[in-house]
Each structure stands twice: as C-alpha cells, then as structure tokens.
C-alpha cells in the first residue's frame, strides 16, 4: 500500500489542507460546550441577558466558520481521492498492458480486472475517508479529554479511563470481526462458483438430470454461510450496545463524582454541563472512528493487492532494433529451440529446428498438446524461448523492438475475438489508417465479404460485446480479415479455420496464396486437408519434431503423419478425387 502513496504526490496541498480544515472544524466544535458553560455560569446565574446573547452569537460564528472549513476539507478530500484513483488506474492499466504472456497466464484475467475495478474503488473510498476523518475523530476524542482536563483534572481522569476502556472494547470486537469477513467472502465465493457453474453448464446438468443434486449442494453451502453470517453478525452487534453502556455509565459516574465536587465548591454547575457534553461528543466520534478503521482496513488490503500487480514487472525485456525483412532465404529460422512454460516441469517444445523462406506456406500438424500453438506463439515473441534462438530477417527476435516487429505479423488466434465497435473499427485494429478499400480487400480474401454484406450497415455494423451477434464461423473469418488488413509479412493461422466448413476453408487458403505479396503463412491445424498443399509441413509429437517435409515426402517417411492422414482419408476417399 505504501508505494501507492506516491500517486498522492501531486495532491500534497489537498492531503495537507484537507485534514487541517477538518481539525479547524473540530476545534470549533470543541469550543461549543465551553461557551455553553460560561453562558450558564455567568449569563444565567447572574441573569445577564446581553451576555447570553453575546455567547449565542459566538455559537453562531463558530458554526459558520466550522461549516466553511468542513466544506473546504470535503472538497480537498474528494479531489485528492478521485485524482489519486485515476492516476493509480492509469498506471495499473499501463502496467497490465506491458505484462508478458507468461505473466498474464500466472496472474489470471479475472484477478487483473478486479484489481482494476473494485479494488481501486475501495482504495479511493479509503483515501477519501482518511483525509476526512482520520485526524478528526481522534482529535475530537482527545480534544474532548484535554478540554475536560482544563475544567477539572480529577473529573478528567474518568474521561481517560473511559476512553481507554472504549478503545479496548472497540479494538477487540473489530480485531475479531475483520478476519471473519474474509471467511464470509470465502463462503460467498462458493455460492458464486456454484451459480456460475450451473448457468454455464446447464446443458450438462439437465442432460444428466442433476438438478436436485445441485439444489442440495447449493442449499447446503447457502445454509452454512447463513449460520456463519449470523454468528459473526451477533458478535459485531455487541459493539453499539456495549459502547453505549460504557459511556453512559461513565456519565452517571461523572455526575456522581461531580455531586461531591460541586458540593465542596470545586466545580460549578456550568462546568459539570460542559463535561457532560464532552462525554457525549466522544461517543459519536468513536463510532465514526471505528467505521473509519474498517474502511481503511479494507482499503489497505485492496491497496496491497493493487500494489502487487503494479509492481509486477514484465518478464520480457524489449529489444531496441528496428524490424527488417532481411533476405528471402532463411527468413524465419528456428535454431534448436526449446521452450518450457513457467511452473511446468517438462519442456513443451524440444530442439525444434527449421527454416522458412519468404512467402512460403508452413503447415503445423500434431496431436492435442503436441506444442503446435506454442511453436507459433514464439514467432511474434509472445513467449521467450528457454533455449536456442528464433531468428526473423536474420535477427534474434529478442533484439527487435516489440511494437514495430509485431506490426508486421498478422495473428489469428484460436479463439475468435471481436471488440465492441463497428466492423470497420475492428478491421482498423490491423492497420490504424486502413482505407475502406484496403478493408474490403482483406475481407474478400478472408471470405468474410458476404458476412459484412449480410449486415444492414455493412462496415458500420456494430459488433456487440464479445461479438455475440456473429456466429463462430463469421467471427473467425472476420478475425482473419483483421490480420490481413495490415498486409503482414508473416501470417499465423492458429487453428483459426476450425469453425469453417471445408469449402470455405479451401477458398480461404487459395485466396491467401493469390495475394500480391503473399505473407509467409503458418497454418496450425488438426486436418491434413488444411496443410497438405503447404511448402513444408512440420509434424509435432509431444513437443518434438516427428517429421518435416512436403505432404508426399511425409506420407512415405513419417509414420505419425501417415496415421493422421489415413484416419481422415481412408483408402476409399482416394476414389473420390
């Protein structure tokens, strides 16, 4: 949390003046009982009306000045808190965008989103309340005590004891209950998970007729949470009654002792009234203070989580060379590449070596988990190799400046993602200044022209969040078009035609090959039909190369490839050609 505070630096004035004005307001408030006391002792006792009026005017003055100091303080607090939150958010968003793929894998998307949203809101709230109240409440409590000391030292000792007892009681109850809230949250998380699972898996649940069982599970967790909430609630509910009792019993004792002092002339009636008023002020402030501590505790916990993510430095170091194409021969070279994901104890790729010429088509085929995606993810340097080198244009990819380098690569990921905005906006992700002509060209190649034409506003058609107004196949074609808009040097199709039927898939491949300056294309697929016309096919098996070559070569030399091919095209299939 502490390191987040540097974001308050620009708000030095606010964070200093805010509490100061609050203190000003509080000190005016503290003077009120004194004014009343002298009104009673001097004004009422001697029947001096003009003195009473004078005191009332002072009261009014105090409350006007108090009001304006309070407003000033609130303004400073609001400004500092909102500005602080905005700065933290900006820094955090920036940092998240800089994280490498392996960092993203280990942190997790939902964690990043909650840090960005609810955690920072919590911190903002905390900062706001802290500026407003952190100094005020203790100041009033101790101020009231100090005032009591100026009136009568022996009576003030009652204050001292009361405040200590109150602090202990409040501290014990809160100290006990704060950790319990974490446990309640845990119980709530279980309910949340069950609900989520029951919506996302509703087909399976109903297909297997598990409704009753699910209800039982949910009710069990639901009841458990309820009992625990009641228990924690009952303990924390002690706070108000107990503090009320302590304080009022202290008042009774104060008056009891006061009776003796007044009788002996050590104390006046007005002073007694002032002491009584101070005691009441303490209770109000103490409750506020307890709530404040609660808010601050939550804010600090959130703040620590935010800071953790903010301090996470990208595990990938950017290079400083500008991207260059190099020679056509050996455009892309994998030199003995091995790659192991963070936290794994086995390599996902082992000793991979191959080269690709400019404009070549490279097919990558292999079983589930054989490392196909891992291999293509190394090309745009989504991950770094653990051994060996990936060279593009004769240069180790780690030497390139990432943004200029990735701009030359068109990636079509496995999961087709479109963003909120028009189709045109989405296409411009590929190239910020793409003209409609360029976009249409890319759409045609990607077999997506008909998708756009079928929508009422064409390129202006709005993609809803997550692209829900498109089918899987339509989304895939649009994501392919998006990658093509930038006329990339390298195109990576990571199993990205899986939702397309054979015919569309075939036309797509043909269109890409017919481009003016065809990119070096990597096609990851499960289907041999998608790769068999490639210049080079890499067959992967458990992270290792099982064979590299053309379709014909592999068919005669590579056992695994033959097996895959046969499973998809049994002998009789040959007759149909």
């Amino acid at each position, binding site marked *: 949390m502490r390191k987040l505070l540097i974001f308050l630096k620009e708000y030095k004035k606010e964070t200093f003046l805010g509490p100061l004005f609050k203190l000003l307001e509080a000190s005016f408030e503290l003077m009120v009982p004194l004014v009343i006391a002298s009104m009673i002792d001097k004004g009422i006792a001697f029947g001096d009306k003009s003195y009473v009026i004078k005191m009332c005017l002072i009261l009014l003055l105090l409350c006007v000045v108090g009001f304006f100091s309070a407003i000033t303080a609130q303004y400073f607090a609001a400004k500092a808190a909102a500005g602080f939150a905005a700065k933290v958010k900006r820094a955090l968003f920036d940092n998240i965008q800089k994280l490498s793929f392996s960092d993203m894998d280990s942190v997790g998307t939902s964690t990043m989103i909650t840090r960005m949203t609810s955690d920072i809101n919590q911190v903002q709230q905390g900062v706001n309340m802290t500026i407003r109240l952190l100094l005020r409440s203790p100041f009033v409590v101790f101020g009231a005590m100090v005032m009591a000391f100026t009136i009568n030292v022996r009576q003030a000792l009652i204050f001292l004891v009361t405040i200590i007892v109150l602090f202990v009681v409040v501290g014990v109850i809160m100290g006990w209950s704060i950790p319990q809230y974490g446990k309640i949250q845990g119980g709530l998380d279980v309910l949340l998970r069950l609900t989520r699972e029951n919506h996302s898996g509703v087909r399976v649940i109903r297909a297997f007729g598990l409704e009753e069982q699910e209800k039982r599970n949910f009710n069990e967790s639901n009841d458990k949470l309820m009992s625990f909430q009641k228990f924690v609630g009952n303990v924390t509910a002690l706070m108000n009654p107990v503090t009320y009792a302590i304080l009022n019993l202290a008042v009774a004792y104060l008056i*009891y002792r006061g009776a003796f002092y007044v009788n002996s002339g050590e104390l006046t009636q007005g002073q007694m009234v002032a002491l009584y008023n101070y005691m009441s002020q303490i209770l109000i402030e103490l409750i506020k203070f307890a709530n404040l501590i609660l808010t601050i505790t939550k804010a600090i916990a959130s703040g620590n989580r935010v800071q953790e993510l903010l301090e996470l430095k990208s595990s990938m170091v950017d290079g400083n060379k500008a991207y260059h194409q190099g020679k056509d021969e050996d455009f892309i070279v994998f030199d003995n590449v091995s790659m192991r994901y963070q936290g794994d104890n086995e390599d996902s790729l082992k000793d991979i070596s191959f080269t690709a010429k400019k404009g070549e088509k490279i097919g990558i085929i292999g079983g589930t*988990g054989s490392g196909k995606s891992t291999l293509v993810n190394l090309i745009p340097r989504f991950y770094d190799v653990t051994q060996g080198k990936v060279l593009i244009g004769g240069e180790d990819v780690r030497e390139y400046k990432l943004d200029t380098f990735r701009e030359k690569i068109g990636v079509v990921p496995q999961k087709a993602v479109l963003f909120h905005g028009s189709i045109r906006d989405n296409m411009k992700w590929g190239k910020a200044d793409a003209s409609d002509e360029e976009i249409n060209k890319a759409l045609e190649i990607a077999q997506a022209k008909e998708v756009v034409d079928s929508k009422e506003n064409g390129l202006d058609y709005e993609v809803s969040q997550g692209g829900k107004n498109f089918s899987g196949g339509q989304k895939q074609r649009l994501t392919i078009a998006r990658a093509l808009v930038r006329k990339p040097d390298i195109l990576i199709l990571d199993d990205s035609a899986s939702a397309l039927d054979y015919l569309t898939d075939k036309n797509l491949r043909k269109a890409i090959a017919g481009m003016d300056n065809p990119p070096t294309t990597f096609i990851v697929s499960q289907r041999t039909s998608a790769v068999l016309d490639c210049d080079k096919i890499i067959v992967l098996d458990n992270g290792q190369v099982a064979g590299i070559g053309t379709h014909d070569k592999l068919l005669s030399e590579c056992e695994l490839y033959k097996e895959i091919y046969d499973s998809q095209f049994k002998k009789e299939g040959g007759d149909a050609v």
Partner: protein
Amino acid sequence: MKKGTLKKVLKYTGRYKILIFLSLVLAVITALLSLYVPILAGGAVDCLIGTNEVDFVKVFGLLGQMAVIVIAISVMQWLMNKANNMITFQVVRDVRKEAFEKLQKLPFEYLDSKQTGDIVNRIISDVDLFSDGLLMGFTQLFTGIVTIVGTLLFMFYLDFKIALVVVVLTPISLFVAKFIASKSFVLFKKQSEARSDQTAFVDEMIGNLSVVKAFAHEDENMEYFEKINDRLEKTSVKATFFSSLTNPSTRFVNNFVYAAVALFGAFACIAGGMSVGELTIFLSYANQYTKPFNEISGVVTELQNALACAERVFSLIEEIPEASDNVKAPVDFRAEGKVTLNDVSFSYDKSKKLIENLNLDIKSGQRIAIVGPTGSGKTTLINLLMRFYDVDSGSISIDGIDIRDLKRADLRNNYGMVLQETWLRYGTVRDNITLGRKDFTDEEIIEAAKAAHAHSFIKRLPKGYDTVISENGGNLSQGQKQLLCITRVMLHIPPMLILDEATSSIDTSTEIRIQKAFNRMMKGRTSFIVAHRLSTIREADVILVMKDGHIIEQGNHEQLLAKGGFYNKLYNSQFA
C-alpha cells in the same frame, strides 16, 4: 422503483413476522428509553446547584435509575440487533435458495439469452446489496422515526415554546439534506455510468489481452482509457464532493438550532421557567434530534438502491419456468430408440424462420450424421431432440410417444450427450466424471476412462483421479477436457447418443481410438453425430445434409456422393 417490489419484499420478510414484531417492539422501547436517559442525567445535574447545596439522596436515586436503564437499553439493543441479523440473513438465504431453484427450472430461451455474469450478479451481489440496504434500512428508518416522534413529545412536555422553535427550524435541515441528496443522486448516476463504461472497456481489453498484444494495440487502448479515466475522475470528484456536503450542511443547521435553543433556553432560565438541568436536556435533544433525519435521508437512498437490486433478483425468480412435466408421463421410460420428427418447425427468433417442416424417421439403432455449414441448424436439431427447446409446431416422438408427454429427466436420461463445448467444474477429476452421482465403483470409473482414452493422462496428473481441477478445467488442455466429458458418457451408457463435435479438439490418433470406443458404444444404439470430419460421417447409416434449417440431402455416403450435390462438393473440397 416499483411498488410491487416492496410488496414482494414484504412477502419474504413476512415469514419472520414474530422476529420483525420483536425487533420493532425493542426498537420502540430502546428509542424511548434512550431519550429518557438525558432527562435523568439532566435531573441529576439540576441537583448540583452549588457549594453545599447538593441534594445527594436525589442525585444517587436518579443515577441509580440511569444505570439500570442504560444496562437495560444495551441488552435490548443487542437483542434487537440479533433479531435483525436473523431476519436479514434468513431472508437472504431464502431469496438465494429460491433464485437458485428457479435457475434449475428456467427454459433455455431465457438462460441462453443471459450471460453467466448477469445471473451470478443477480443471485450473489444483488442479493447482498439488497440485504445490506433494505433490511438494515427498515430498522434504522423505524428507530429514526420513533426517536424523532419521541424527542418531540419529550420536548413539548418539557417546554412548549422552545420545542416550537426546534420544530419550526428543523425543516431547513430536511430541505438541505433533500436538496443535496437529489443533486448528488444525479451526479452519482453520471459517475456510475462513467464507471461502467470503464469497467466494460477494461473487461474487454484485459480479457483479450493476448489479442491486444498481438496487434500491438496498447497505445491506442491507453489513449482511449485515459479519455474515460479523465471523465470518471471529473464526475467522481463532483459526486463525492457533493454527497459529502450532507454531513457538514445538516450539522450546520443543527448547530444553528442548537444556538437558538441555547438562547431561548437561557432566557427561560433567567425568567425562571426552566432549570439548568432542563436546558442541558434540551441541548442534548437538539443535538441528537436532527441526527435521525440525516440517517433517514441516507437510508432512503440505500432503500432505493436495495429495491433496485431486489427487483433484479425478483425478475429472475418470477421468470416463467419450463412447463411442468406431463403428470401422465410413463414411469422410468426406457427408449428402444425409434425417433420420429413429424413436420417440425422451430426458430429462436420467431421473426426469422429456421427449421421448417422437418420430417425424419429414424429406426432403432441407426447412426445419423448431421453435416452442413455453420448456422444451418445442426445444433438446433439437438436442442430439440433433448427438449432443451420445444418445437413451435409439429412433434418429435420416441418409440411413438411425443417427447412432451415424457418427463424431461427421463427423456434426457435416455441420451448420452457430448458437446463441443466442454464443461468442467471445480472439483476432483472423479467428481467431474461421476458428476457427483455416488453409485459408481472405482473400477467402473477407470474402465470408462480407459474406453475414452483419458486414463493415461489422468494417471499422470499429480493426484490421479483425486486431482482437483480448477473451474472450467483451467489446467487441462482443450483435448483433455473433451476426453473427460466423453468419459462421463462412457460411464453410463444410455440407449441413445448425441455427439456434437465431440472430438473436435482431440488429436487424430487419439480420435481414431476413441472412435472405436464410440463405435462399440453406438452398436445397437440410435446415435446422432454432428461432425466436420467426413471420416467420422462416412460410416453413418443416414447422413442428413442441412442448410438454412432444411435437410437438403439425405442418404448414406455412397448415395450422396453419387448424387453429385452439396455433399459431394463438401466432401471433395477435402482433397483440394
């Protein structure tokens, strides 16, 4: 906020009438007694007139009463809190229970149209906000009103004139509070709009960060983010500042009233109509009198918020559930596997036709492959067979019985289903295979896993079948997830099968082996297979070629190839 919502809330709380009554009674007693305490204290202060003038007997008597009452108040307050806790948490439990049970009965039309996050929000956070705001609000509102009325009564009882001064001045406080509340409500709304814009953006971009990075779109994102961020900051400062004016402003009015009471009270004291003790009481009343007003205005906002949340949960609870099962449905229906579709029409969006006049006659034990381009209605057909959706017209029957005359659970139990979209839950591998059904031995589970070719990878997991997998199987590959889903069906083989792209993410060599297991399974069982891979399709008895909701071609592989139509074109495109 609708009045209906409040009524529904009362329906839920109505179950705890006794507790609510108890809570209200305790609230009245504690509020009135708390008002009586200052009178006792004031009375005692009145006895402390000056040197050697203190009436000790009276002071001790009053203080004794005060101590007893204070303790009584504390105990009752705690009991009241306890009762409120019970009401709150039990109502929350009830609402959640009902909502979740409703979830199990809602039709797919509704479920498919809602995002998971939306449903989760309703059942979890909305209910939470509802409980926080509403039920706490109820009691605070009530205590607040009792306190105000009580204070007024006590004040009028003590001194009519000064009480009148207080009554005349307090509306200012109310007015100020109301003005601020309505103004800040507008600002809060703006703030929450800006905030939800930001959340949506963050959600989208961080959720798809890999695409963002692939397209080096970070700078554009940052630019856009800063725009929303600035807007949020500005609205946030305004909203926070304005709403935070409530306390100082009402305190200001409050202090003003306080000064007025002091003035008039002091004059009354001088005139002899009032004692100093009474003035003390008045001052302390004036101090706490306006507090409930502030609280009430706060509570009203929270109530509004709570009711808005409640409305969202209730709208879920009140959705029309699936029509209940036919009471005359046969018991323990076990299908032979004869499936007939008679003139079936169906579409999701009733203005756009999808499946029209579909007729199909499937004999027991036949293997049906469904092929066709995306969006042609393959998955829809399965939705209808499983009765996830009901047909718009026509009928589907199994062994001659309309499926609407069967119990849904019975119908679905007769199908084993593997979908392209894998669904795994948080739990052990074993739980995910059995789905919590207890009647399977370890041997049966392992056998099923072997048949699905999942055993070898499960064995390699850190704790084998007891390995806990995270929600949605985060630590498994897509193919492994599919294998687990296949194991589920292998474990308990029903009379009919539905495989919707069941092996799309599994590598080919494994697929071949699974296919063999499927073939064994499908022997003698009616099965429906949706697939892209024509090798899978080739062996089917009947191939249905679908396009735009219609079956455009129907027959076996050879027949369809010979026909030279759409299927032929599709098939040959594999060999380009």
